[in-house]
């Protein structure tokens, strides 16, 4: 009797898992199929396989959507943001986690509060205009860094306490300067945390949409998300081209996700959940 129940429960579990997975996959499959359809079959997205697998959609979309430029922009913004955020974020997290005086704890709390507070875009726009950073590449990168910094510090902070303080003491006795200590001792031991923080920062920045929408006016500075949004406005009925554009926009994040899945999931929960 008991084994019969176990079998039923196992079947039920597998069935429910598949239902959930299929619900998650349907939109993704729709995009995959429709990206290869010829124009006349793509007025709307459907599960019907394309009559002719049209690979030229990708060429067309790259040309019409000026995607090479946007791709390079996205890479530049995301790459710079990730490096700057992780380098300075880890330095800050390191100091916060090691010092822990009431003063430093307060500053740490103040930074972590950044995960909570909403950005006032109206006044931010004014600040960007006054500082001449609006519609500039350094401006958008600084904005991204400022947005990603609180979570990055929060994430790395939890890992720093797992690096034994005794190592620091030994290094100092051996004559390390603070910067040498950080680069030679702390950074290598923090590597998993830095990878997690870096990957998440990359994903978030690549996917970001509000900042370029409001702080980059000229189309030659647009990243992929804004390019696709604009493309969607122009080619609303050409779902084959939109889907091709979607695939090209998502490819880097999906590849990164598949390669770094372990870091994303494990690191996030270790950092954010257990601290």
């Amino acid at each position, binding site marked *: 009797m008991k084994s019969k129940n176990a079998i039923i429960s196992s079947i039920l579990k597998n069935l429910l898992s598949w239902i959930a997975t299929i619900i998650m*996959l349907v939109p993704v499959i729709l995009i995959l199929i429709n990206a290869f359809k010829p124009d006349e079959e793509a007025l709307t997205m459907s599960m019907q396989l394309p009559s002719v697998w049209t690979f030229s959609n990708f060429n067309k979309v790259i040309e019409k959507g000026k995607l090479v430029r946007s791709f390079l922009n996205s890479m530049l913004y995301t790459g710079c943001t990730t490096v700057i955020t992780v380098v300075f974020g880890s330095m800050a997290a390191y100091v916060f986690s090691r010092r822990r005086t009431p003063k430093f704890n307060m500053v740490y*709390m103040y930074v972590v509060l*950044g995960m909570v507070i909403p950005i006032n875009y109206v006044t931010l726009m004014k600040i960007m205009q006054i500082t001449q950073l609006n519609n500039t590449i350094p401006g958008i990168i600084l904005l991204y860094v400022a947005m990603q910094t609180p979570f990055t510090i929060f994430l790395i902070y939890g890992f720093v306490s797992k690096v034994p303080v005794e190592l620091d003491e030994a290094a100092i006795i051996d004559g390390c300067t*603070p910067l040498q200590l950080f680069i030679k001792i702390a950074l290598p031991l923090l590597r998993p945390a830095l990878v997690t923080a870096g990957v998440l920062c990359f994903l978030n920045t690549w996917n970001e949409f509000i900042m370029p929408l409001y702080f980059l006016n000229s189309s030659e500075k647009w990243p992929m998300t804004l390019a*696709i949004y604009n493309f969607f406005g122009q080619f609303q009925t050409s779902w084959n081209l939109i889907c091709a554009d979607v695939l090209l926009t998502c490819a880097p994040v999906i590849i990164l996700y598949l390669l770094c899945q372990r870091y994303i999931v494990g690191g996030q929960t270790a950092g954010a959940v257990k601290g």
Partner: protein
Amino acid sequence: MNKAKVYPWYFAAVSVLLYTALSVIPGIIGIGYSFTDWSAYSKELHFVGLKNFIKVFSASDDYLRYISNTLTFTVVTTVFKTGLGLLLAMILSKGVFGKNFHRATMYLPSVLPILVTGLTFTSILNPKYGFLNNTLRSLGLDFLAKKWLVDPKLAFGTVMTVDIWRGTGYIMTMLLVGILAIPKVYYEAASIDGANAWQKFKYVTLPMLRQTLAVTIVLNVLYGLKVFDIVYTLTNGGPGHRTEVMYTAVFKMMSKGLYAEGTTISSVMFIFMVIVGYFMVKILTRNEVVE
């Protein structure tokens, strides 16, 4: 060892300065500007007292609806994402073939740009040609084929459902890691004491998951209160402001040149979230050094 020398304060300076300049200062200046008549149409600024705040909180304008929509969105998506996430995490924690495949697939929507999710669903949910309604019609369920994003009664529910689709896998993954970290001996002990599956869930799993649940709920609430991308791409607040949330309203004010109104809504959010956020940060940073 002299900590002040070994871990110098200036290591933190760049991060703290940037964050202060581009995140905190706009918020604080914004509070100041909410007492003025700042707009794109006049170069002069006048102090108007609480006029903007009175306008935001008066029933005659739509602002209260934006606030209540934002709160509804936050509560509903948090409850469903956490509930469904917990259910799926429990299912996947034991006795499912291809666990890693399911897990990877369910997490996938949360790594995609929200913008892309929104665009894709505008096609899927199109009342005439959309994939959803076409499928329903081909199954003979014509009466279920609604105008998902156009019908004022349905639009907000649809937007929330799409967001639940997007976010559940993420919560599921966090909770699954938490569940798998619970030592097996607790379940064995419960079995010996004659606990059934429900009792094990209630007396072992849930209490052990408390911290993980608290963190996921906090992250969900924060996301919900600041939601923008998904609403903007699916409905942009329409039909007739039915799905308008605080951030979409702020951006509309901004593009109309009504800076004072925009910054007032932002400031209401800012003050509210700094107060609520203090407690949330406490939850997030609680028992952070367990080892």
